[in-house]
């Protein structure tokens, strides 16, 4: 690791590679820096590479071209995931339940069981959650795709198999088949969820705008 002050050649190579939009060869660097000798550029690159070896950014050579890149052990910083726990909406829960009880099942079948139209997004959410998957196509006219539950679904809901799901009679005994006038509620909920999703996207934008605003203020 070089600790002494870098000389001007090194600084110039450093700045050039930093600002370049593409990796640069020794020759291109030499040319850019007013016709330096290749050997000098090579020495400079060598010393820069050593300097950056234990930093958060590395100087690397790929196919004779040099560029800076994030240290491999920090690559995870480039792509962060922010997890957010959300409760499944009632509409999505209904669809999931129908898939679980009737699988494999097509969207049209789900709709006919639910008695209401099902937003495309609802199935997407369930796929994203990893609880349902495509299970081929039904060999009927139109060959609709059919859905089935996954192992993850069983894990999440603590079921060892689909047979663990209570049957209709048990549901009745538990009073779960008592009519509830909730088709409207479910639809309402679906609409609300959609609205919320779009609001969240907006909020995100606003946050950013706010951040900008705050930063922009002159320290008068």
């Amino acid at each position: 690791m070089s600790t002494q002050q870098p000389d001007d050649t090194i600084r110039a190579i450093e700045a050039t590679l930093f600002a370049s939009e593409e990796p640069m060869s020794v020759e291109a660097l030499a040319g850019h820096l007013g016709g330096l000798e290749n050997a000098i550029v090579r020495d400079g690159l060598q010393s820069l590479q050593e300097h950056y070896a234990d930093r958060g950014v590395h100087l690397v050579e790929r196919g004779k071209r040099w560029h800076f890149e994030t240290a491999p052990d920090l690559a995870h910083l480039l792509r962060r995931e922010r997890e957010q726990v959300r409760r499944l909406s009632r509409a999505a829960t209904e669809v999931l339940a129908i898939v679980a009880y009737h699988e494999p099942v097509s969207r049209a079948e789900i709709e006919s069981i639910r008695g209401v139209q099902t937003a495309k997004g609802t199935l997407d959410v369930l796929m994203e959650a990893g609880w349902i998957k495509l299970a081929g196509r039904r060999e009927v006219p139109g060959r609709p795709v059919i859905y089935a539950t996954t192992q993850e679904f069983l894990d999440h809901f603590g079921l060892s198999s689909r047979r663990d799901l209570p049957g209709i009679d048990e549901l009745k005994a538990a009073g779960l088949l008592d009519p509830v006038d909730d088709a409207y509620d479910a639809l309402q909920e679906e609409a609300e969820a959609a609205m919320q999703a779009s609001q969240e996207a907006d909020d995100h934008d606003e946050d950013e705008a706010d951040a900008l605003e705050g930063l922009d203020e002159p320290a008068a």
Partner: protein
Amino acid sequence: MNDDGLLIDMPGSTDDASDWAGPAAPAKGDDSALYLELEGWEGPLDLLLDLARRQKVDLRQISILALVDQYLGYIEKAEALRLELAADYLVMAAWLAYLKSALLLPKDEQEDPSPEELALRLQLRLQRLGAMREAAARLMARDRIGRDIFLRGAPEGLRIDRKTQWKSDSFALIQAYGQVKARTAPKIYHVSDRPVMTLESALDRVSAMLGLTLEWMEIREFLPPHAEPRLRKSALASSFVAALELARLGKAEIAQEEIFGEMRIRRIKQ
């Protein structure tokens, strides 16, 4: 600058190779150059500022009278060249001509605001504009991104993927299914059989009973004597309709003394 500061020579005559050709000193008598320069200036205060700077002195010490002279000289010259002058220029010229005359007149003949005040205000404005123009030049001369300073050419970029972790439980699942089932299950309505007296049988019964006597009979007397209450209700309704039908056919007459009172029926003798 000469002693009293109000009578200064045109600085153009000093020919001090100014950093730029001011309008008061048309470049080497080239008339067309004047016109081109005119385009570069946007208005009177701007032009005055340039004139002021050409005196190469601190604006605070500049002679407004000299400045006015130069400006008016410029306007005159431009007119001689038949240049079209913006109204701005002419308004300023008129105002400055007034200011000049005021500055030359004895003080006690003057009104408010005094020419000194006007001159001072003009000077203050020129100073402020000069300061801003200088600041602009310093700003533009800074090391600027994209010209002198560069940001990273190919940043990898940071991305934040928002991932939603969905949550639910088996009770919610089962409950949801139950509700779907409950909501969509075909509904069957059971209508249980109940004893009724049809209109036909009531008609037969009422006409038969009326044939026995010519006396008034209360409608309840036509009902089957030991009928259960529900059949009785039905018989009452049917018997009433039968009585109305018989009345319509002219076979019976109906009487009621008061609302909800006893209803009586009697055969009409034919």
